[in-house]
């Protein structure tokens, strides 16, 4: 031990000497997150496949091999040469790359330098940062409790939930409650201590900043619609009340009703959800086509994760990620001239939890999407190996049930559950009596 002492002191001194920020830090003082994102560039550097190293023979994480520092050095060099500054970085093992965020002086420089960086042989790919937005209108008046059998057993706002009547939610819950299905809510922050959400969140992570858990309107409403606790004497019941939520904050609240996200924050959350073996990804947001996110969605779909995205009627192609092949595109307000692949779910006047601990009525494709994510969890509990394409087949209305010109086609939740269960699910007693 005597021999160790001077070395130990040296080690402490060495660590103290490097106690400095590793990265350049944020944008200009007072600059908004939206404004900063507009002048940022994403640079991906390839990560070689992990392999043996003689100095890693005692359980050293292969991912911590010196290559990580080498790529950091390359990113710093690229930033210097292109007149940018290194802002942040994150490993994306699903794509075999490390992703670096570089700040440019302005948006035009960011676009120009993304092009230039992409031609550097050390760079796997590069793109300008893009912004996405939630598809919702601000919450309105507190919904009034209504008399219903379920209200008496503990969910006073149940009767106000569109899914109660349209989807026969009680009868769906007799078949499945989404028990144990992992649903990733990639959204703004979720109020973890809301009475309808307490105990429903398996994991919460913040990919926007270091603020820890942040309670925001959009994420809280989406999470509650998917998996609010049932029978707890307050509020609503989620479509899948026994699903396990991954509350992944990738968006930040702009005002009471809207939220914004960036390519980088969404990519970090997607990578986490893939690693955490989520079974459903809820993406109640829209924006421009994004190659980094497209690649991550393709990985998720290949691994059997169902992705539900909000259809944006204001966007020419329905908005990304709803326009991405394999993503279940959900409209909430129809009728629209949506492509035939888009499905409709109730999206207006949905009671949902608010970050202040109360409830409000919310509307928009965001919340229709949340209901379909909940429905996907119900179906996945019954058939855990359900592939995304099989889920789509279950949710699509049967031919002849809807008019050929109806756009978008409405989801028949009872029919989907019936196809999954193989027997009558909704209004069976009435049907039996009629026979």
């Amino acid at each position: 031990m005597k021999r160790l002492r001077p070395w130990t002191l040296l080690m402490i001194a060495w660590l103290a000497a490097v106690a400095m920020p590793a990265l350049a830090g944020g944008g200009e003082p007072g600059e908004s997150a939206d404004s900063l994102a507009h002048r940022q560039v994403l640079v991906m550097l390839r990560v070689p496949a992990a392999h043996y190293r003689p100095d890693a023979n005692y359980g050293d994480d292969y991912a911590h091999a010196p290559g990580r520092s080498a790529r950091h050095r390359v990113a710093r060099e690229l930033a210097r040469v292109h007149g940018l500054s290194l802002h942040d970085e994150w490993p994306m093992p699903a794509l075999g790359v490390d992703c670096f965020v570089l700040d440019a002086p302005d948006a035009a420089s960011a676009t120009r330098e993304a092009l230039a960086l992409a031609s550097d042989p050390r760079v796997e790919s590069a793109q300008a940062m893009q912004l996405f937005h939630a598809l919702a209108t601000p919450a309105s008046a507190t919904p009034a409790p209504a008399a219903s059998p379920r209200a008496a057993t503990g969910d006073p706002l149940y009767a106000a939930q569109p899914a109660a009547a349209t989807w026969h939610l009680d009868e769906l819950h007799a078949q499945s409650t989404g028990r144990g299905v992992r649903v990733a809510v990639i959204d703004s922050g979720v109020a973890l201590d809301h009475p309808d959400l307490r105990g429903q969140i398996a994991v919460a992570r913040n990919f926007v900043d270091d603020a820890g858990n942040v309670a925001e309107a959009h994420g809280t409403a989406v999470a509650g619609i998917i998996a609010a606790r049932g029978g707890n004497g307050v509020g609503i019941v989620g479509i899948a009340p026994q699903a396990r939520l991954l509350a992944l904050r990738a968006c930040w609240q702009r005002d009471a009703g809207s939220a914004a996200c960036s390519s980088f924050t969404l990519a970090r959350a997607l990578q986490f959800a893939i690693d955490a073996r989520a079974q459903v990804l809820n993406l109640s947001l829209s924006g421009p086509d994004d190659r980094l996110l497209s690649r991550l969605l393709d990985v998720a779909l290949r691994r059997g994760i169902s992705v539900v995205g909000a259809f944006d009627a204001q966007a020419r192609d329905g908005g990304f990620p709803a326009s991405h092949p394999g993503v279940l595109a959900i409209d909430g307000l129809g009728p629209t001239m949506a492509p035939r692949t888009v499905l409709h779910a109730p999206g207006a006047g949905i009671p949902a939890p608010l970050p202040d601990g109360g409830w409000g009525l919310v509307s928009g494709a965001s919340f229709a999407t949340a209901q379909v994510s909940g429905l996907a969890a119900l179906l996945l509990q019954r058939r855990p190996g359900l592939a995304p394409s099989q889920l789509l087949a279950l949710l699509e209305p049967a031919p002849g049930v809807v008019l050929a010109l109806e756009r978008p086609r409405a989801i028949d939740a009872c029919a989907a559950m019936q196809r999954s269960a193989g027997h009558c699910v909704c209004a069976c007693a009435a049907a039996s009596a009629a026979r």
Partner: protein
Amino acid sequence: MLFVAPAWAQGSGSAAWLSDDRYHGASLSDGAPTAQLTLAWDGAGGWYAGSQFTRVRFAYRASNGRDAGAELEAAPYLGYVRALGPRLRVEAGAQYTWFSHTSRYAYPELYAGLSGDRLHARLAWIHDYFGMPADAWYAELNGDRPLRGPWRALAHVGLLRQGTLRQGTLQPGRLQLSAASAYGVETQRWRYDFAAGLGVAWAGFDLQATWTTRSADADTGCVPWQCGARDAWVFRLSRSW
């Protein structure tokens, strides 16, 4: 707007301070702190190569009674890794371990490995392990698990099988006869080693603290001759670039 460029080779390196250089459960630094340098190269198509340089010091004294002293260990390696799926990789390679003074300890090894995201298994065949006229097999399983923030948990278990000595190969200078006697000419020897601890990465530095141990029956005739304490806390501070 995104463009994909061809893959590009990456060079990297690390320098480390170790409180003890533990290898297969034995100390190669006589239980003393030492330094290590690693250079690595990753090619575009799955090929990789590199070399590790470590200051080592064997505990045994030469037949003339003099301390063997400190020397340099160099371990160049070359391998190929290929993905079998999104979370599984297979690899194969070769390594040669050489010592600047006790060059008779030098040995080559061939290995194959299978890696997932968090678990890495490797099997190595070692010819004339530390100069013993007997081949050895070493199987190891390494694992890591991310914890909060920059912290991670580390674990390692290894099993060494040293074969019987080849007859007629014992000769002074190549192998100490007394040690060979202790080793047991006719017997195979088994030794396991285990390590577990924590790692933290910060600002380009990586600090590991692991507790290591090895099987009790390896204390007699242990290769290379005196293996140091069975149990030890090992600290490793490295900086990579």
